């Protein structure tokens, strides 16, 4: 699936929830289910600092695709990380670099991506795109 198809799928998935509680329950579920980040990647270098919660992001390259693995110490952040992974993981570097992540807004979680939220998500997304750009440069 393309990045946009993934976003559409998530938007649809969230459209069934009646209120924020159901939505958050789902996010928490996703957070708990997120594929664990290998212990060796829980390192300072992979740490994306947020003041409220911390995010670890590991990136790798496979063909022209970027492969991410990530984790957070807060479950809600982790759930949002999981959504980001569904959208951006294992996608062509070029697509990641130019992606417009409108789904967060559309599922009503915009505030979590506010730069003042300090939960590490904004910085994580920025970093994911930077990785993508870097890989593109390398393979160019």
């Amino acid at each position, binding site marked *: 699936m393309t990045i946009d198809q993934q976003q559409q799928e998530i938007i649809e998935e969230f459209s069934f929830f009646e209120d*924020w*509680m159901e939505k*958050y*329950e789902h996010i*928490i579920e996703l957070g708990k289910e997120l594929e664990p980040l290998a212990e060796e990647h829980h390192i300072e270098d992979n740490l994306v600092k947020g*003041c*409220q*919660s*911390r995010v670890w992001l590991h990136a790798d390259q496979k063909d022209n695709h970027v492969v991410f693995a990530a984790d957070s*110490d*807060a*479950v*809600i*952040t982790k759930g949002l990380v999981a959504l980001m992974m569904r959208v951006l993981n294992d996608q062509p570097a070029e697509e990641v670099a130019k992606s417009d992540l409108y789904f967060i807004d559309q599922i009503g979680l915009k505030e979590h991506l506010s730069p003042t939220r*300090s*939960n590490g998500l904004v910085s994580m997304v920025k970093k994911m795109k930077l990785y993508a750009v870097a890989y593109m440069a390398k393979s160019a």
Partner: protein
Amino acid sequence: MEDAVLIHESYDVDRLREDFPVLEQTVYGKYPLVYLDNGASSQKPKQVVETMEKYYYHHHANIHRGVHYLSQEATTQYEVARDKARDFMNAPHSREVLFTKGTTDGINLVAYSYGRKYLQEGDVVLVSTMEHHSNIVPWQIVCEEIGAKVVPIPINEAGEIDQEAYASMLGPKVRMVAVNHVSNTLGTINPVKDMIALAHQHGIPVLVDGAQSAPHLTIDVQDLDCDFYAISGHKMYGPTGTGILYGKEKWLDAIPPYQGGGEMIQTVTFEKTTYNELPHKFEAGTPNIAGGIALGAAIDYLNSIGLDRIAAHENDLLEYTTKALLEVEGMRIIGTAANKASVISFLIGDIHPYDAGTILDKMGIAVRTGHHCTEPLMNRFEIPGTVRASFGLYNTRAEADRLLEGVHKVVQLFG
């Protein structure tokens, strides 16, 4: 016991809430706001906002040195506000009462001006492990420049300053003790009067960070005998961008000015500039005139209720909430000092504060989460942060119940 009931009954919190229009709102469409983030900043009563409005609509002009009517009027109001602040802290003289932007600004002033005059290489500034960054970083900046050191006084598990350790750390190299009166994270009320007396035995001055005490306790700088005392307007129901620094005249006379500019000079030439008398020496530039005057209104407001009665009300909420919280499984209260103000920091099992705070927020309950600008304290307790509920004069038991309801929901979701 009967007295406590009396105080409680005569404290008409519903009436007081009418002074705070901001409290009347619902958030996220359906939840009446429960504002428990008073430690970060309190809300403002109409009396304060209307004072600013009145000032701008009738009296505004730049102050001091203006010959015209409005300027004289504005100056008088500003200086009356200074007198109110003097009374509020029981400072001997108005010239020892400096207007600042806030506690951070006040502490930076002292760190810069006192530090530059009295700190030397190898000297030590003692701060407690529970200090707010605003009472650590300014000292680090000046100490680094001079080659002095900021050394933390340890605290115990309850979140109280280790007084034995403190006594043993005082010595000839120590040039300043800087501690808060009330901890913003733990709620601990520190025995600053005793600590000051002890420091003075060694000839060491003491700065008290009163950001959290001003809205809760009666401040008496003469009784404390502190050398400096810094507070913020916005935490005591006053406007943002205001604060007061009390300093003993002998220090304010001795130390160099902080900022340079208009107001703070006597005469300026390119050869030699001389400085104005107190308090002007430390008040460069056009001040926050409307803010200062409205801070005076906040002081009037607090006095009209009575800090004692406010404290009694808040203590009731503190006890009530603490007791109820402790019944939640896995509840851990960070900060269990014998002497506490109405601040409760907690953690539930291994639920992350950000998770708890996010859900509480969704239920309309405003608490603060994170390190509360006290990272060394978080490191001391080896925790990433806390959830902090802090009460103000307008909070109610019903709101405490809402918090508890929220906590139960959090447990249900993450437990």
